[in-house]
């Protein structure tokens, strides 16, 4: 096959996936020293070039400084971008900072379809007596909960997923290597159908086929962590996987679209 044929084929294979990014980011973080500042314009350009048709977008400010400010900045950035939806930074409902879920008069915004916690960075853990009321609220709204594997423990995720089986949890594979932990993650996915694995850094050999064969494709979701990371990493992995076309489409977008379509505000 010639180079131009190869380029065309891979680009067409990716476009056929109708990708939706579960983890796009505005702002910046020191975890990726070489990243450019995540402006809406840069993210838009990256998505256009990679053929990504929609996204859940977050703001690094939510971890790095003030979650309430981050959510405000994020929602302002989404104005006029109807294919982008917000992932809000949330914390335990008690004690609640002003402007966050749990504070007086706070209402879940229309543009937000997901929530993310940073337990390690914000100094708490995902034990029920701390985050139980938050999880109950998210279950009532059918809002999925995102958490990076570096912000919690697999034991906590397991316990939370079992305690709240109606809560969709998306375990994110950044910001450090997740490939060392597959002996914990695979049993976690198998035991907890409500735990989903985000793919941006889930890159050890053959894992996509192994999970599809042994657990099923419904618990894998495309995330890119653009603009820190290259969206063509997970997209290439999915497009060139030796799995069915239906499974590829599920992983690249349909799974997360199904989850956020259930949100009831």
């Amino acid at each position, binding site marked *: 096959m010639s180079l131009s044929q190869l380029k065309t084929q891979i680009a067409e294979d990716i476009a056929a996936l109708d990708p939706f990014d579960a983890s796009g980011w505005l702002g910046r973080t020191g975890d990726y020293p*070489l990243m450019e500042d995540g402006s809406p314009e840069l993210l838009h350009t990256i998505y256009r070039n990679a053929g990504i048709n929609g996204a859940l977008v977050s703001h690094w400010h939510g971890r790095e400084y003030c979650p309430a400010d981050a959510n405000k900045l994020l929602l302002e950035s989404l104005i006029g971008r109807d294919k982008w939806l917000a992932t809000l930074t949330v914390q335990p409902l008690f004690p609640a900072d002003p402007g966050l879920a749990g504070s007086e008069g706070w209402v879940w915004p229309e543009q937000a379809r997901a929530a993310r916690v940073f337990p390690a960075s914000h100094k708490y853990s995902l034990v029920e007596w701390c985050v139980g009321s938050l999880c109950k609220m998210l279950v009532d709204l059918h809002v999925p909960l995102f958490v990076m594997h570096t912000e919690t423990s697999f034991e906590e995720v397991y316990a939370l997923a079992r305690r709240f089986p109606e809560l969709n949890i998306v375990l994110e594979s950044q910001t450090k290597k997740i490939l060392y932990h597959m002996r914990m993650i695979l049993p976690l996915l198998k035991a907890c159908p409500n735990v989903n694995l985000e793919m941006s850094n889930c890159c050890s050999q053959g894992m996509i086929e192994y999970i599809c064969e042994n657990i099923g494709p419904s618990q894998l979701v495309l995330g890119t962590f653009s603009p820190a990371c290259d969206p063509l990493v997970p997209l290439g992995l999915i497009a060139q996987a030796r799995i069915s076309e239906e499974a590829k489409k599920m992983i690249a977008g349909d799974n997360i679209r199904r989850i956020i379509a259930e949100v009831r505000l």
Partner: protein
Amino acid sequence: MSALRIVDAHMHLGCPWTLFTHGWQTAEVLRLMNHLGIERAYSIHHRWLAGDLDEGRAASLEAYEQSGGRIPFMAVFDPRCEKQSLAAIDSCLGEGGFIGIKIHPSFHGIAADDASYEVIWEYAQEHNLPILSHTWSETYNPVQKLSLPRLFETHIARHPSVSFVMGHAGGPGTGQYQAAELAGKYPNVYLDIAGDVFTYDLLPRLVRNVGADRVIFGTDQPWIDPRSNLARTILSGITDEQMRLVLGENALRVFEPHLLSEGD
């Protein structure tokens, strides 16, 4: 126009033991190479890295035979056991499939600028062998500071005839700047993009900074699935001429120059 040649210039064979991966067996690796159109892959066997010199050598030769010559190998030099390492490398001289030397300062726990590496640089110079080393940035993992690109400079400068490949192009942080600086300063330095250096715009940036003739495609399988790096390379936006260099011709020039005219 010559056919596209894809060479994975940095991968591993054998059980990766500390982590769970799927399909690391040589037959599976070959199947995936066929699926992706990868013509050749350069292996560093896990057993060799782990210090099992005889077993690593035997397994590398076996994989070379099993692959019909498509998976040549590098021998590992461990400065903690210099004599045994050199003896094992000596025994590879003249063997089909032996193409270079691998060093891994972080894995072996000895910083890249340590004098104990001088012997292998001398050896590589004497036998006209390229050296591939793990390189990385300062991160949360403290052993990575043993492989910072700048630590290699003395050896590079002292051995200008040794082609030196900085694996992972210095990693995902400021080590990448150090690697690019050294490639700019020394014509015998190359950067490979193997591994999980998933930085956005990585390949175009490296090509801009050091030139397409100094960047080499690699995967680091089975730690990293080869598909993680292949599509992003092919769709990176660099020119077709640059792509041919990066995807295969540079690796052939460094490790197997006798094959360079094949397919042209």
